């Protein structure tokens, strides 16, 4: 079977700085894959490169066999990639309802089914539905941001460090929700929180200094503490 | 002198030749050419005064003409009311220096409070327009929109003589402004241009340095204004207008921002082109519409030649040098 998302030898740059220097990743339909690595390894840049928010110098990215390098961000998004950025990226001056609505416009005929699904998944959002997003807590913003990637027919969603800055209790709830989501959606998850990554993903890729240096199943990684220490330092 | 030590022999020689050529030009040229070149000298100083701000601090001042116009008006008002002799000229210079540093101080206090390039551009545009409005309404002193013609001291009457004064003015101001850029204050300004936040972290109170830069720029611009007033024997509100500020901006843009000398090249180019086009007006009346060409030049430079002439030249020289170096290295190997 062809991979759903395939990046090969990806090199990308911001201004004068080359950030990615050869990242290769393959994700198949239905998988949940974690992207691990130290701070500054290039994980966030990798996601932004997929979205076309960072320029690609060489290498390829294919979604369902179709190249997406050089396409404008909005077209990449329309091809079925949902993006949940590190800092949530919710629109503060819009209500929760409007935040979801903007995301739903991606479909020609948006359905309410998906919206009802996320509101059941995150009841907090249902309660605050008509309120401005700036009234939400950090965890609720994360939920809103993830919801925006779920209300349309995305083939894959890219989630950037969902646990960042959240309280342990909230992270636990988030892990459950992500596990639930991964049953029906393909996920590429960037995560520093090893426990969360283990709870959600089946496979991992390791990035260091802008290159993929290792890959394998999460199970192997959990069992091999030596490997953990080598790649992730103290966890 | 430190200045000379910094230059290599070739540059020094080239400058010497240039100086000699410039000194004999007036004896072989038409009066109109002499006036044109005097104008280039003076507007080069005006352009450099703008470059101090724009090039070295990144701040776009759209009210810069208020210093230039004020210099011309102060000269005109003084010569008209107190007699046209050198003592009055000296007074006008002193008053211009005081006025411009004060005006720059007030402008700086309003503009340099946080904000940014956008806010500064909008606010300085408003300030400049206000000064122009005041000059237009204060008819008893400025003669309003009609403009103020005035008599000048006898020493400045001779066009050839004034040519040399303008040249000396340009040389002095170039040296002074260059020394300012090389001074500790100037270096901080450059650091601000590179990265304002970092300069702040290093403990520099950036707004204080910018204020000093603005004052130096204002004074230099005011002095150029005096010379320009004397050259034309006339001051009007156009000298205070946004258009006049845009002149300085175009001069620095064409020459190359942040290069100081770029303004000299820019002034020569812009004024020569303007002169050439105006001479074509008998061919077609469209050539009288200098502003159309002026605006077009602006857009073209911004889109296609943002480094300006001197910037392009520096880039070219740098490339040649690196090529030479790599060749030398290859040979060595």
């Amino acid at each position, binding site marked *: 079977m062809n991979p759903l998302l395939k990046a090969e030898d990806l090199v990308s740059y911001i201004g004068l700085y080359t950030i990615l220097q050869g990242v290769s990743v393959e994700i198949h339909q239905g998988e949940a894959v974690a992207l691990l690595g130290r701070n500054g390894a290039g994980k966030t840049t990798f996601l932004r490169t997929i979205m076309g928010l960072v320029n690609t110098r060489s290498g390829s990215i294919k979604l369902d066999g179709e190249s997406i390098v050089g396409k404008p961000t909005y077209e990449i998004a329309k091809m079925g990639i949902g993006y949940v950025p590190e800092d949530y990226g919710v629109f503060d001056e*819009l209500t929760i309802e409007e935040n979801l609505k903007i995301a739903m416009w991606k479909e020609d005929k948006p359905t309410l089914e998906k919206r009802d699904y996320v509101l059941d998944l995150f009841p907090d959002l249902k309660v605050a539905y008509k309120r401005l997003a700036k009234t939400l807590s950090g965890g609720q913003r994360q939920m809103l941001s993830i919801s925006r990637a779920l209300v349309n027919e995305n083939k894959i969603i890219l989630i950037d460090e969902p646990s960042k800055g959240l309280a342990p209790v909230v992270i636990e709830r988030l892990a459950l929700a992500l596990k639930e989501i991964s049953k029906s959606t393909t996920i590429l998850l960037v995560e520093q929180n090893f426990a969360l990554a283990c709870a959600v993903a089946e496979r991992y890729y390791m990035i260091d200094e802008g290159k993929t240096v290792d890959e394998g199943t999460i199970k192997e990684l959990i069992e091999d503490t030596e490997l953990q220490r080598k790649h992730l330092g103290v966890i | 002198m430190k200045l000379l030590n910094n230059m290599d022999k070739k540059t020094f020689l080239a400058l010497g030749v240039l100086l000699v050529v410039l000194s004999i030009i007036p004896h072989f040229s038409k009066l109109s050419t002499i006036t044109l070149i005097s104008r280039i000298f003076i507007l080069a100083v005006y352009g450099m005064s703008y470059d101090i701000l724009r090039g070295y601090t990144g701040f776009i001042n759209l009210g810069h003409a208020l210093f230039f116009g004020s210099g011309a008006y102060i000269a005109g008002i003084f010569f008209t009311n107190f007699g046209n002799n050198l003592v009055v000229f000296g007074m006008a210079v002193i008053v211009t220096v005081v006025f411009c540093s004060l005006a720059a101080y007030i402008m700086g206090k309003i503009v340099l409070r946080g904000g940014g390039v956008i806010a500064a551009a909008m606010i300085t545009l408003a300030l400049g327009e206000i000064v122009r409005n005041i000059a237009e309404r204060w008819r008893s002193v400025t003669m309003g929109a009609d403009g103020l013609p005035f008599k000048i001291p006898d020493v400045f009457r001779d066009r050839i003589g004034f040519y040399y004064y303008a040249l000396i003015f340009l040389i002095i101001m170039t040296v002074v402004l260059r020394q300012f850029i090389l001074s500790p204050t100037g270096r901080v300004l450059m650091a601000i241009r590179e990265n304002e936040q970092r300069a702040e972290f290093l403990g520099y109170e950036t707004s204080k340095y910018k204020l000093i830069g603005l004052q130096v720029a204002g004074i230099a611009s005011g002095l150029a204004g005096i010379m320009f007033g004397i050259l034309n024997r006339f001051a009007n509100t156009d000298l205070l207008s946004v258009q006049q500020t845009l002149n300085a901006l175009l001069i620095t843009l064409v020459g190359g921002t942040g290069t100081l000398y770029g303004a000299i090249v820019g002034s020569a180019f812009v004024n020569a082109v303007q002169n050439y086009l105006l001479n074509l007006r008998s061919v077609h009346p469209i050539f009288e519409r200098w*502003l159309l060409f002026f605006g077009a030049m602006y857009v073209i430079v911004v889109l296609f030649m943002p480094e300006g002439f001197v910037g392009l030249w520096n880039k070219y020289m740098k490339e040649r040098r690196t090529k030479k170096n790599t060749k030398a290295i290859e040979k060595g190997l």
Partner: protein
Amino acid sequence: MDIFITLLINGLAEGALIFLMASGLSIILGLMGVVNFTHGTLFLWGGYSFVWIYTLTNSFVLGILASILIVFALGVFFEKFFVSRVYGNVPAQILITLGLQVIFTDLVRLFWGASPINVARPSYLAGTWSIGGVTIVQYRVFLIVVGALIAIGIHILLNKTKIGMVIRAGVQRPDMVQALGINIKLYFTLVFAAGAALAGLGGALYAPLVGSISSTAGMHNQVLAFIVVVIGGMGSFIGSAAGSVFLGLMGAAVAWYAPSLAVVANVTLMAAVLAFKPSGLFGLAVKK
């Protein structure tokens, strides 16, 4: 009391005109981070094309419509061919819009001449009402009504429509709007042109108020709009509305009680606001 009402109406009418300029300027600044120095020229083009069509057809309404259309098209032209090339580069944006301002202001002089052109108000708006000894100029009331309608219109557009939602979202996170599948560049063009059209409408309505149009009116009104945007808070629609009304009222009062101070009053106000609240009265300063 009489004079109070007259000044109120004068001030509000003036404020309505300033608002047409300032609101477009402010939204463009907020959404795209572009300070549009062509606004004064667009105002002029609005005024001149109105006068042109109005004298040609003798229809006030046609003149207004023509000015809006022509200036909208100019806005599309400016954005597509010039401004869009320099997004993200603030100094280049300022310089390129300044260059366009110079060219198109001179084109106005080339096409319509440098001397002012007189224009009368249409007969149905030219009269005055006399209520309890107070003379009320109909055209000024008309301006206030138009200004208020436009303000309500923009408010509804921003808060109730798809376009408005994208604009509000884009002011904050243009990258995220794109990552959700929306082509924000299309909206940039649209908003820039709509802002231009508002300035054009301002110019069209200004000419009959003053009784003439001349090529210096553009810069004058642009400066007023800038002052409003600075004191209202850059990028804030409410701020630009409130700032316009305030500036209009103050202008009317100063013109009556202390005409010699008229020139400096606006700038003093701006300086005072900046001294106490650098981000403007309604905050939301664009950080650039």
